[in-house]
């Protein structure tokens, strides 16, 4: 067991230390504010503040907000309060094994590098991953140069107009009928009692007319993730036109491309000039037609953009053939994480249209349990035919 951290003599007191601890947690990705710091201090007045286990339990309750936080909390707590990386080497007591300190401080630094990408960390902590990353990127650029394609060659202006109509129909098919509040309506499934009582007052308690109410339909937001890796090139034309049409049909939709990384294309697609849109897209879709890292891209989406843009009234539409160049496990994990946001997930696979196709590609097999709908689609007509399926979701 490591010892309790010895703070410097000029340390201003418990409040500042708690502030420091909260900042330490925040640096490691826990979402905490001033309110929590105050609450943590108050909490300590209700327990024995000198007993490390009690303080640990109390602070865990106050500072954690999810199961992941809870799992990491013990290490973070040790790193700050239990002599982990805070004490200058010269104050280290000789009796304590030196290796222990080295170990725990490394660990803390590693976590920091993981938690706050882009924040300055000690140079040697981030050395190895940075090197590896550099290599990967260099390779990708070589590929990009060879595989660069202009999307304008692929997509025609008429296609977009047609796709827009299809997209409008699909958007109309996706309605959420789970609203909590009922609204007054001429034909509703329930009697609007509140109104009935009010109206019957004027007729001496005789309910002459029966006002009704129903659950109003709420539109669903559609988020499209389109795979533009090499194996998908032949279908990209249809899908890109479809996405472009969809973006123009509905203001709230959102779209992303992925191959070896994920790119948000929503803003580019909102350009009023359809062809200029495609030109901008070509620039964004650098690496188009290369390899695909579906799992990594989906995970990036689930961890990043999805937090802001995906909620219970969202349909995530994935257009991909499920051929991943990396391990398939990540796809399942990413979709499970995405599913927890409460959204519906639809996977449209162009290969499914082939005779005798079975989702045996590992990526596809991993994805299957998380999908609400798995459908073939490789032409615009296929997409148009989807609306009946979507109504049933």
């Amino acid at each position: 067991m490591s010892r309790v951290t010895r703070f410097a003599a000029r340390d201003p007191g418990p409040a500042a230390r708690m502030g420091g601890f909260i900042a330490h947690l925040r640096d490691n990705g826990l979402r905490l504010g001033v309110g929590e710091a105050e609450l943590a201090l108050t909490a300590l007045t209700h327990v024995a503040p000198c007993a490390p286990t009690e303080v640990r339990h109390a602070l865990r309750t106050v500072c954690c907000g999810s199961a992941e936080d809870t799992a990491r909390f013990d290490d973070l707590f040790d790193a700050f309060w239990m002599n982990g990386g805070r004490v200058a080497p010269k104050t280290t007591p000789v009796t304590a094994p030196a290796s222990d300190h080295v170990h725990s401080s490394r660990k803390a630094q590693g976590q920091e590098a993981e938690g706050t990408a882009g924040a300055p960390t000690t140079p040697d902590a981030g050395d190895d991953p940075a090197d590896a990353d550099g290599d990967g990127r260099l390779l990708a650029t070589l590929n990009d140069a060879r595989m660069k394609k202009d999307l304008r060659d692929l997509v025609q202006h008429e296609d977009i107009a047609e796709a827009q109509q299809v997209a409008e129909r699909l958007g109309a098919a996706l309605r959420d009928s789970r609203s909590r509040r009922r609204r007054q309506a001429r034909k509703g499934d329930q009697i609007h009692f509140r109104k009935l009582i009010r109206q019957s007052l004027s007729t001496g308690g005789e309910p002459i007319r029966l006002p009704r109410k129903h659950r109003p339909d709420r539109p669903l937001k559609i988020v499209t993730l389109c795979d533009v890796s090499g194996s998908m090139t032949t279908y990209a034309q249809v899908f890109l036109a479809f996405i472009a049409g969809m973006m123009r049909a509905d203001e709230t939709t959102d779209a992303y491309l992925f191959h070896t990384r994920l790119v948000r294309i929503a803003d580019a697609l909102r350009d009023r000039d359809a062809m200029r849109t495609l030109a901008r897209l070509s620039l964004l879709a650098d690496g188009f037609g290369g390899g695909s890292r579906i799992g990594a891209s989906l995970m990036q989406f689930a961890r990043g953009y999805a937090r802001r843009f995906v909620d219970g009234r969202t349909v995530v539409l994935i257009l991909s053939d499920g051929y991943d160049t990396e391990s398939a496990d990540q796809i399942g994990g990413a979709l499970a994480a995405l599913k927890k946001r409460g959204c519906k997930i639809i996977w449209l696979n162009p290969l499914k249209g082939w005779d005798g196709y079975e989702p045996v590609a590992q990526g596809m097999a991993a994805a299957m349990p998380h999908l609400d709908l798995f459908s073939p689609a490789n032409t615009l007509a296929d997409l148009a035919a989807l609306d009946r399926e979507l109504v049933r979701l």
Partner: protein
Amino acid sequence: MDWTTLQTAMAEQGYVAGDDLAMAVHLSLTLGRPLLLEGAAGVGKTDIARVLAAVQDTQLIRLQCYEGLDAQQAIYEWNYQRQLLSIRAAAEDGETGRSVEERIFSEEFLLERPLLKAIRQPEPPVLLIDEIDRADEEFEAYLLEVLSEFQITVPELGTLVATSRPIVILTANGTRDLSDALRRRCLYAHVSYPDRQTELAILKSRCAGIEAKLAGQIVGFVQSLRKEDLEKQPGIAEMLDFASALMGLGIADLTRDPVVLQATLATLLKTQTDRDNITTEVAQRLAGKAA
């Protein structure tokens, strides 16, 4: 009451809580913050509220959340049938508009649903909001408002302010992510499956007459069963069912009769795939390890 006293008091009511959980409940009581409990189904999240109500000697008010939970089910509703009758009666008596209206929109005609009921008790009750992740985001947002203001506005009556602040316990299974806003308002505790010692203590406190050997076997068996690849892991309630099934059948040793063991697995495994996965051989292996 400090947290160890609370832990003992909860144990007396038949709930064996780990240190971290007892601390979380203690802080929730002293700081007056809602407590969010997250964890797999069947680890005893809901039970904490029941036990806490017993320890505090107060009422337990429960709001079960589900998809499409609406204000009329959660907060209040007017008693429309009584209102209608009352209007009719008033018309017979010759009572007119204004006074009838005032009378039928008085508290006498208000049906309290859990949230309103909880804030209008003379003594602070325990309010259990069960499976909050089943309700939709809008309800979550509304709940936040109630939990921070502790007042509810009824248009006809005005704002009803809390007479006492309830002790709020929320539970979630993790079927969807809860909003950060809700998490920040609450204290948090993750309830996981108990370790061997705790589970043994739970079993002994619930099934008083159980033999030590069988109890050890049961807990060992269930604990190793949880490590298997199952769709639905058996919770504490399932473990207790399993124990009482075995006791009811008069079994003293798990490894004795494979057929009976396989039959009693019905109390632990609740899906077809899980039943298929745990074959007689697997069950015997696990039972042998536990013995």
